[in-house]
């Protein structure tokens, strides 16, 4: 029974328990029988010795009577008849089977009588004087043996004693088995059932003796234990359910966090893609800037050529005017003119080459700008669609996490309340344990005061004491478990608070990411607009260049005319004068064209400068955007770190909860061992 509580589930304990019980009753009966046997032996011995004493006394009286009779006869003897009478009396006396030897001495006359068997016996001797008139005249000596043991008497006595012993044995056995034994058996059977975890049984005795009190006390204990265990069961079930819910909630939280993490990774990827596009835009813009610088230098070259042409043409004009005055110098002048015309042609050729180069450059610029605009709009799309979607996802995820964490906090608070319920129950158990302890002390006192009869009862009292000690230690264990539980719940609550803070921080970061993304979108849209305006400017530039090319073609044609005319002049001076006016006109036209070209070139230069300015603006905007991108990437990394930390914390809490769940399961199983309903 001492250890049975601990191993209540093992069946082999039952046999050992029964053996203890059998030993208890048989020991009691055996001890009572031994006492009875000793008592009877004593009585038997006493009656036997009394019997012997009576026999001895009778014998002695008889011997004295015989001796007196012989003395009387011997005192009167004085003649031969008298002696014969004495001998006759002595022979008569020898008929008594106890008397072995008679010797009478009178006045130195000795008469002896002996029976047949006399040697082997342990004989007693009785000597008495023969008195006559106050003087001793002789002695009578009797030798006799003590009486033999009466075997019939012994047999009768033993038989009687045996019958009494058997009857008493039967009576004691019947009394013990029928009264105390049954009750103790009932008690121990119940204790055994309780030991095996069945709390549904009651003893329900109506006895008013000590066993009845113990049975009632036991009933009361079992009832209290039953109520407590029922409460514990329900509480353990509740706690277990709450923790399962908690586990579920945590799984949701972890899912939410993983989802958030994935969303964040997507955002990060999108931002990185955007950043790459931005970098490409920047390098393109730089290329554009360098190309524009090339354009400007080509244009400056062209301008110089145009101005040279204009100067040459003015010079030519002056010379043509001089031709009018000096015909003699005409030939020389004509040659000079021819060489000058050659110079002009070369210059025009150079200008034409430059213009073509510039045209090509401008077209390339146009292409680059188009590419840049495309990239910009692509970036805008990426940010607007994927980025914002991811941010929305992240916000939703954060909301879900928040909801999960809130329900988690509620569940943990409920758990806390449940554990204080357990504390209340523990105090009830402590009460019961104290009561049991006192009950066992009182039972011990009763057992000691009951003396020998109370020994069996003291075994029960001892069992009660060990039961109460065991309950006290179990209660202590449960109290330890509960305090561990409460500590863990507190830790879980702290972790949850930390999680809530993290989630709020995460929320904040996600919102900031959204703002930053909107900024990027804005910058990107502005960049796209700028690229489009550059595109328009380039188109205009291309149109201006086309005009310049046309004008140069015109100049070329004119110069060819000049060349031809100069050749004709060499053939004859006569036709010169006629031609000179047309030359003059052509010169005028050439000068006009040249002026026009110079103006176009200026226009182009202006446009290109404008384009350059725009490009520089784009470069600046791109650099700004890049900076913003870097900030976003930094923020994203921060978000990821916080997310990972949150996940780690949540997992930690989850681990806590799992261990909590395990412990509550252990508690629940321990409580489940008790059977609390008859079903």
């Amino acid at each position, binding site marked *: 029974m001492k250890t049975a509580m601990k191993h209540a589930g093992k069946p082999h304990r039952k046999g050992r328990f029964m053996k203890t019980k059998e030993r208890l009753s048989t020991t009691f009966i055996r001890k009572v029988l031994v006492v009875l046997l000793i008592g009877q032996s004593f009585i038997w011995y006493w009656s036997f010795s009394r019997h012997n004493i009576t026999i001895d006394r009778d014998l002695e009286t008889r011997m004295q009577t015989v001796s007196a009779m012989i003395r009387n006869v011997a005192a009167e003897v004085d003649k031969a008849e008298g002696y014969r009478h004495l001998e006759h009396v002595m022979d008569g006396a020898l008929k008594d089977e106890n008397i072995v030897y008679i010797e009478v001495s009178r006045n130195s006359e000795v008469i002896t009588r002996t029976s047949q068997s006399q040697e082997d016996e342990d004989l007693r001797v009785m000597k008495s004087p023969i008195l006559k008139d106050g003087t001793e005249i002789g002695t009578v000596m009797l030798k006799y043996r003590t009486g033999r043991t009466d075997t019939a008497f012994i047999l009768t006595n033993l038989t009687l004693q045996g019958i009494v012993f058997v009857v008493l044995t039967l009576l004691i056995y019947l009394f013990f088995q029928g009264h105390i034994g049954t009750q103790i058996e009932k008690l121990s059977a119940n204790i055994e059932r309780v030991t095996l975890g069945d709390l549904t049984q009651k003893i329900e005795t109506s006895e008013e003796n000590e066993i009845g009190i113990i049975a009632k006390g036991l009933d009361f204990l079992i009832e209290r234990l039953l109520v407590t265990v029922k409460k514990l069961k329900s509480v353990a079930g509740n706690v277990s359910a709450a923790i399962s819910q908690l586990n579920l909630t945590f799984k949701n939280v972890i899912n939410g966090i993983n989802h958030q993490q994935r969303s964040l990774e997507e955002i990060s990827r999108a931002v990185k893609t955007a950043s790459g596009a931005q970098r490409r835009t920047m390098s393109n813009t730089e290329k554009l800037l360098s190309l524009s610088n090339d354009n400007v230098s080509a244009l400056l070259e062209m301008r110089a050529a145009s101005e040279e042409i204009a100067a040459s043409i003015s010079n030519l004009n002056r010379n043509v005017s001089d031709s009018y005055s000096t015909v003699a110098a005409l030939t020389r002048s004509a040659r000079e003119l021819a060489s000058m015309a050659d110079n002009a042609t070369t210059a025009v050729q150079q200008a034409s080459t430059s213009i073509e180069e510039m045209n090509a450059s401008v077209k390339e610029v146009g292409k680059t700008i188009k590419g840049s605009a495309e990239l910009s709009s692509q970036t805008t799309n990426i940010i607007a669609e994927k980025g914002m979607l991811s941010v929305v996802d992240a916000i939703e995820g954060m909301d879900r996490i928040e909801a999960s964490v809130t329900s988690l906090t509620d569940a943990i608070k409920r758990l806390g309340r449940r554990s204080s319920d357990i504390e209340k129950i523990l105090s009830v158990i402590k009460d019961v344990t104290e009561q049991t302890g006192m009950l066992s002390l009182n039972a011990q*006192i009763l057992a000691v005061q009951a003396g020998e009869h109370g020994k069996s009862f003291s075994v029960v009292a001892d069992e009660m004491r060990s039961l109460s000690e065991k309950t006290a230690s179990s209660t202590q264990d449960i109290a330890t478990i509960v305090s561990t539980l409460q500590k863990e719940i507190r830790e879980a609550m702290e972790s949850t608070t930390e999680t809530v803070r993290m989630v709020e921080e995460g929320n904040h970061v996600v919102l900031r990411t959204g703002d930053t993304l909107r900024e990027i979108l804005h910058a990107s849209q502005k960049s796209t607009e700028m690229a489009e305006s550059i595109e328009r400017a380039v188109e205009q530039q291309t149109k201006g260049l086309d005009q310049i090319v046309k004008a140069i073609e015109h100049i070329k044609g004119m110069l060819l005319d000049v060349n031809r005319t100069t050749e004709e002049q060499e053939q004859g001076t006569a036709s010169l004068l006629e031609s000179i006016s047309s030359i003059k006109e052509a010169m005028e036209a050439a000068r006009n064209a040249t002026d026009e070209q110079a103006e176009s070139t200026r226009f182009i230069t202006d446009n290109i400068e404008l384009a350059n300015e725009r490009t520089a603006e784009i470069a600046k905007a791109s650099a700004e955007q890049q900076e913003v991108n870097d900030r976003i990437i930094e923020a994203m990394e921060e978000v990821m770190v916080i997310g990972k930390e949150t996940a780690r914390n949540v997992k930690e809490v989850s681990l806590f909860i799992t261990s909590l769940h395990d412990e509550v399961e252990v508690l629940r199983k321990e409580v489940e061992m008790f059977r609390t309903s008859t079903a």
Partner: protein
Amino acid sequence: MKYTVFKVAGGSFGIGIEGVVEILKYREIERIPQLPDFISGVMNVRGDVIPVIDLRERFGITEEADRRRIITVRLEGGTAGLIVDEVTGIREIPDEKISSPPRVFNEFRSDFMKGLCHEQPGRDRVTIILDIERILSRDEKIMLKTSMEKLTGEGRKRGGRRIEKRPG
């Protein structure tokens, strides 16, 4: 011989088990003005009104403490309760382990004591074996008897010492 061992103000005491009736949980006792000083009050044990002696007060200890048990003992043909701090248990103490007490030991008057039991030689831990009969002086015993008769006199007239149980 077996003793009921208990604690009062940190000291360990024992009384012979044959004089003990039962051990009860401590409960508030009724303080009645007309009782002599050495009786702290009376209590109702299953219908019997018995006098209660606080051993702390009896030993002259004024310091208050958490008292948790009442031992009821047979005294002067009746039953009396002794308020103690704690009951340690029932213990077998052989007579040869009990030595006669000095005149004054640890502030307790030796006339309460029957002997001292040294648990382990050389240690300070000692169980004082009390003589229940000597806890009260002869005069006090007479006062106790008369007081109790006065208290339960009305109950006696109605038939014995049993009085009605109060509800709760």
